[in-house]
């Protein structure tokens, strides 16, 4: 049986057993519901688009002005709605009571409540001016296209400077760093506790008699990584669907390149840390030892995450540049910098190469420790003993 099919078999087992695990199913379900809930809630809270403004009217002139407001509302980030009243007095009462934000009554007069937004007043005035000008032009005998040419000349051509997607990109960077940190932490621990389970249940002896430890570890890391990736993707997709449905989120704002670079570093980072967590697991004989043995990794990871937020806000800083190149932090720090365009291609290539190299080194170490430590059942194995004397 060749190496690849053994790795695949081991990975398959991890995936199948994970999916069969009741706790895993329940957690996934809860998180899926939470993702959908968060997406919907974002729609309710943020409401995304233009602010609504209710305009009371009485009389035909006033109604025409509101039509004009609605046509021009987009430039003011407002969405005017008309509420017709039978008389100027009832419109005035509605403003007083706050039922409408403003009212236009024949007279003509603009009634404004104390809380009225300056933008809506400006919009109402502009619409009124445009209406008056249109009437004057029509009285002068111009009609149709000619009138439109006078009243609304073609707008000044505009060039937007700066990156319109900057916010979206930074958002992707933040979410990417957070997810990377959470998934690596969760699944890293799952990998190491899986290794400890194999040691403490002693199944490791019949496994190692059939499969070299390297393949066991790699299969475990890949299988659990696949589950983690799918689980995370499910949360993201469900959350995005819910947020899109509720109008809080516009998927076109996310640059595909940003998502791709985050995904790449996500996988490389997971591989590196999962191998390190597997190595930590190989040093423990009981689940109780795990926390203390994995704590250096956890510190690296938490530190990387904390520093990544700084790197995202100032991607050109010296610390950010240095950290994004070196393996323990590169996967968390680099994507934010790449997304914001602060990185030369060789920096990406260098960090990827360093990460792959370090992953190989860690995998070799983990393999060696696993061989050395797995036949020793009791207690914690010191790093030195596992690497040195007990090698098989």
């Amino acid at each position, binding site marked *: 049986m060749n190496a690849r099919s053994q790795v695949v078999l081991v990975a398959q087992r991890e995936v199948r057993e994970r999916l069969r695990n009741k706790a895993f199913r329940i957690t996934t379900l809860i998180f899926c519901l939470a993702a959908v809930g968060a997406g919907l809630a974002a729609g309710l809270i943020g409401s995304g688009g233009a602010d609504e403004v209710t305009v009371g009217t009485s009389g035909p002139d006033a109604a025409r002005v509101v039509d004009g407001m609605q046509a021009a509302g987009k430039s003011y980030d407002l969405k005017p709605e008309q509420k017709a009243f039978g008389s100027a007095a009832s419109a005035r009462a509605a403003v007083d009571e706050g039922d409408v934000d403003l009212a236009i009554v024949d007279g003509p007069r603009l009634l404004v409540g104390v809380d009225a937004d300056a933008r809506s007043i400006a919009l109402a005035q502009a619409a009124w001016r445009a209406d008056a000008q249109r009437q004057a032009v029509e009285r002068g005998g111009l009609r149709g296209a000619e009138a439109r040419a006078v009243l609304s000349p073609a707008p000044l051509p505009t060039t937007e400077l700066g990156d319109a997607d900057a916010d979206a990109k930074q958002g992707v960077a933040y979410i990417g760093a957070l997810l990377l940190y959470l998934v690596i932490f969760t699944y890293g621990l799952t990998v190491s506790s899986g290794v400890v389970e194999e040691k403490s249940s002693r199944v490791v002896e*019949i496994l190692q008699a059939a499969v070299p430890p390297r393949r066991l570890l790699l299969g475990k890391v890949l299988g659990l990584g696949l589950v983690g990736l799918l689980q995370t993707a499910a949360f993201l997709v469900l959350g995005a669907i819910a947020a899109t449905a509720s109008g809080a989120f516009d998927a076109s704002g996310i640059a595909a390149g940003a998502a791709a670079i985050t995904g790449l570093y996500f996988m490389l980072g997971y591989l590196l840390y999962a191998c390190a967590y597997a190595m930590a697991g190989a040093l423990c004989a009981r689940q109780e030892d795990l926390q203390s043995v994995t704590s250096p990794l956890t510190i690296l990871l938490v530190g990387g995450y904390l520093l990544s937020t700084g790197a995202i806000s100032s991607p050109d800083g010296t610390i950010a540049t240095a950290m994004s190149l070196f393996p323990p932090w590169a996967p968390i720090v680099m994507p934010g910098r790449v997304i914001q365009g602060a990185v030369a291609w060789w920096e990406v290539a260098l960090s990827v190469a360093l990460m792959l190299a370090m992953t190989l080194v860690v995998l070799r170490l983990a393999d060696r420790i696993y061989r050395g430590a797995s*036949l020793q059942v009791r207690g914690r194995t010191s790093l030195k003993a596992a690497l040195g004397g007990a090698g098989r």
Partner: protein
Amino acid sequence: MLEVQDVTRSFDGRRALDGVSLTVEPGQSVGFVGPNGAGKTTTMRIILGLLAPDAGEVRWQGAPLDEPGRQRIGYMPEERGLYPRMRIGDQLTWLARLHGADAKAAVRASDHWTERLGLADRRGEEVESLSLGNQQRVQLAAALVHDPELLILDEPFSGLDPTGVDALAEVLVERAAAGAAILFSSHQLELVERQCEAVVIITGGTIHTAGAVADLRAAGGGTRVRVQVEGADAAGDWARAVPGVRGVRADRGAVVVELADDAGVDDVIDAARAAGTLLHFSHERPTLAELYREAVAPPDPDAEDAHPDAEVVR
């Protein structure tokens, strides 16, 4: 044929194995006996490649045993272990595949062995929900499920109830008849004697004795006769003065007399007649248990007399 050749291994400067050699032929069951810490488990782990020898090598069918070869071994470690939360059927199927069986054959083998070992209605249960005895059966199935040519079983009988012992004994006979080479360790010496054509006794990391059980019994321990004399003292003091007698002990109403060789047998008969009425006289072969005792502790007649009923060191 499995050949362990001159294998030496030390742990932290302490020599655990010193020039250990043994062979197991296809179709042969070899019992591997010795006191705790003598090196049985270390030898088995070296055969499986779990430990590397400091010197010497393990050969299978004439060539050094490599990784593909090791996948043809069925192994039952002394410390049992399976995935506790994995279902029995799934686990056996998966282990068969890990040893190179294709998907269909793996399912077939898993079904076959669960059926054969009385676990058919437990296939869907998790291993940790089984009794220890049944877990032991699953462990055995795990060693057999890929139809191995070589079985290395470390204390396979320990922890089994009498039905389990019979079932395992039967399976081993069947596998040997099918051509498998079997090496198993055990402290149950009557069982080894019944089960194996050959035995290897290891003490302190070196092979003490190896060979066919029948030859060892014929060769070992000099000559021994069982004598029952009416009217003589029960301790058999009458025999102690006979020339050539190495040891005398009372055993279930008779006296067992050990002699250096057959030359003194007539003298023992004469002495018995002189002491009383000779009711019974027989020539005895030493049991494996006795050969073993002799191997692990040099003979000390006084100590043996103090425990005439101790038969097997368990």
